[in-house]
């Protein structure tokens, strides 16, 4: 090329080459950081685990990437399952797999809290949006709701299973007692026995001597006076120490010293911290267990109707056409009478007429006219059975 007449420093050129190379390196670093994800190798490892445990179809189907449970009804965006891939494999993969692959422990109430509806953070806390372990579990300096881990629980003198009850009770607050929430149940019992409502108003009822406690769990931590609190400045510590020794934390207080044991004070602290507002739709709030029991037996509580040799189809009809929802065989009355021994009580002709049109039998025979009164005013509805179905049923019922 021809020599330039008025060129600026030739150094410009050298710097430009250097800057170009640095630019390329920086872009490469950024791209590497983006694609070298924390969860990538974990997902590969899980696929191997699936293969090792003979879950070949699932291993073949496995697609890498971020996974999330999204439920806008309760505002859940949980990406925990990106790494905690074994969560739904309870029973199929061993429970002693190393974290994060271990299946969720098979708790009896897991069915009432299905994963697609509840996600993970509702119970466990943590930052659902995150896709790295530290940001998901602790969330950094500005995340106020860390995962309720073993480590955190130990620091508070509890186990993780006890600490999690704090979150259970956010929804289960109105249960008198809930299976699986021993500490909270104990605390609720204490609240009743120690008569906290004499001085504190909770949900509109109670005294005005002490502060209202309805949403104690939502109170701004900065509004507590930590002057006399030992240890970390947390609401947990404040509440616990205040319950154990009110006068030390809030001098000259009217609150008596109840002489709680440490475990009791911790349970009460869990209860207090669980009193938070939530905007869950009603279908997510449990009906209190005590109130929900119907005073009568449900069909699901009784077993299957008995087998009768040679009357398979009749038994099937009994199970699938709805007979079993109103009649048991030998397990007591549900809506209609227990049909054990009906074969001896009624002949085939009677059974055929009844199954074809129950109301006609009531009308035709005066001795059965009182039946509706005995059965909550209900006459058995006509099931619109076909002739074959009636034959099969009669064959079955006459053997009972």
């Amino acid at each position: 090329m021809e020599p330039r007449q008025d060129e600026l420093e030739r150094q410009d050129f050298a710097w430009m080459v250097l800057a170009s190379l640095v630019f390329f390196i920086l872009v490469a670093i950024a791209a590497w950081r983006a694609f070298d994800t924390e969860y990538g190798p974990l997902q590969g490892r899980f696929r191997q685990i699936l293969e090792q445990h003979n879950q070949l179809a699932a291993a073949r189907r496995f697609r890498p990437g971020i996974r999330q449970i999204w439920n806008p009804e309760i505002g859940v965006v949980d990406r925990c399952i990106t790494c905690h891939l074994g969560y739904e494999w309870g029973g199929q993969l061993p429970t002693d797999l190393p974290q994060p692959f271990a299946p969720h422990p098979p708790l009896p109430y897991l069915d009432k809290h299905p994963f697609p509806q509840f996600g993970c953070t509702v119970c466990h806390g943590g930052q659902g949006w995150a896709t790295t372990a530290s940001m998901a579990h602790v969330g950094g300096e500005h995340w106020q709701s860390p995962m309720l881990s073993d480590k955190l629980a130990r620091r508070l003198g509890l186990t993780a299973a006890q600490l999690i009850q704090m979150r259970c009770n956010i929804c289960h607050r109105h249960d008198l007692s809930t299976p699986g929430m021993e500490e909270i149940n104990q605390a609720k019992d204490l609240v009743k026995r120690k008569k906290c409502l004499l001085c504190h108003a909770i949900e509109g009822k109670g005294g005005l001597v002490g502060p209202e406690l309805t949403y104690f769990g939502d109170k701004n931590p900065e509004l507590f006076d930590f002057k006399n609190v030992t240890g970390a400045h947390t609401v947990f510590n404040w509440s616990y120490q205040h319950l154990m020794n009110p006068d030390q934390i809030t001098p000259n207080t009217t609150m008596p010293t109840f002489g709680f044991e440490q475990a009791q004070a911790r349970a009460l602290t869990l209860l207090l911290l669980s009193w938070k507002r939530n905007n869950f739709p009603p279908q997510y709030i449990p009906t209190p267990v005590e109130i929900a029991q119907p005073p009568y037996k449900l069909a699901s509580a009784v077993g299957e109707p008995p087998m009768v040799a040679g009357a398979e189809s009749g038994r099937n009809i009994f199970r699938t056409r709805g007979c079993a929802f109103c009649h048991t065989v030998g397990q007591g009355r549900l809506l209609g009478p227990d049909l054990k021994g009906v074969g001896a009580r009624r002949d085939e002709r009677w059974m055929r007429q009844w199954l074809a049109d129950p109301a006609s039998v009531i009308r035709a025979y005066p001795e059965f006219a009182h039946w509706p009164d005995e059965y909550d005013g209900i006459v058995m509805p006509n099931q619109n059975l076909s002739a074959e179905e009636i034959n099969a049923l009669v064959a079955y019922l006459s053997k009972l």
Partner: protein
Amino acid sequence: MTMRERLSALWRTLAWSWDPRGEREAGEAIVRNLWLHWFPAKVARVSASWSYSAWLGAIAAILFLILNVTGLLLMFFYVPSTEKAYGSMKDLDYAVTLGWLLRNQHRWAAHGMVAVAFLHMARVFFTGAYRGPRALNWLVGLALLLTTLLCSFTGYLLPWDQLALWAVTVGTNIAREAPLAGEFIRYVLLGGTQIGQNALLRFYVLHVFFIPLAIWALFAYHMWRVRKDGGLAAIEPLRLNRQMQPKQMPATKSYSLWGLARGTSAAVRSSTELEESDQVFASPSVTRRLVLVVLVVLNVTILISVFFNAPLEEAANPALTPNPAKAPWYFLWLQELVASTTIPIGSIRISGGLIGGIIVPGVLLAAAALWPWLDRSSPAAEGVWFARERRWQNATFATVLVLIVALIMIGIFVRGPYWRLYWPGTPWPPTPRTL
């Protein structure tokens, strides 16, 4: 022709402007190129030097370009709704490939642009480059500074976290202190009496469209004025010392913005009034240096973005004020003033918001705007760093600058909870937490 020759010829047709051969091509490269024709064909060597301008104006413009590109991309992911904004920020950090880089680049480039704009203004002042015909451009520059600050401020609210909500609360409450119209201004800005969905949407539309549009328009005018004024003020000492006779300029052939400016055609002045030895061809000398500056600015932005994350605090909670609640750093000096200038006169307390928030910056702005006409120094003081003749002016400006920076530093590093002073080394009381 062989394939190699064909490719070479094709490359030539595409790239000739950036790599001209000979003087004729060098001139045409500028004049015939839409992107390059803002430059004159020849530029004074000193104008393009690092030591004169540090290319600060160019750096600010490049940062603005980065902001535009990253901002446009961010618009595909961010949702300006009070319910969804925070979640969309979290998604950018975790669920969008390279979303974190996009967001970080945007944030750091924004802070950089505000800082560089200030530095550029300081450079222009210290080199006395606002005098004579350049006074109008000085005013345009002030307008650019204000719109840049406003763009940064409107963007600050968008993440809808605690930092955003309360910084804007402090900022808009300072605005409210303006006499007579303050309350109304705040009401219109927020679309209500509180910072809520209306405020978020207004700030969003201002931030992504109207203010950038204003900046582009002002920027275009700013650059046009530079050409109209004959180039950077660095050429003025050269013109004083020239041996060549100035050419008689025709008064016609002048484009103006609504006829507000008068004068001669643009590019002609400097190149005919300066010695040839003082000049270089814009292409490739200046264009190459510009590419270098672009690369360096990009490098620095990416470097900082890769290693430092943009902050995101807890979701906005109007019921809980963080302790302390601070304005964005470029307004911290105002917050310092506001916090300490409440004056009791007899039974009346004049609010610090009025004195520190409106009057002081108002006076500073007015002084800056009027300075070109208050400056009585001779033409010899133009276009040189720290000209002796202007030393009192420079000292005044430097003092104000240092004070502002000092107040900002105090606001960042020394102010703690309850706005008490916590000198470096003194730990803050631990923030209470739930667990």
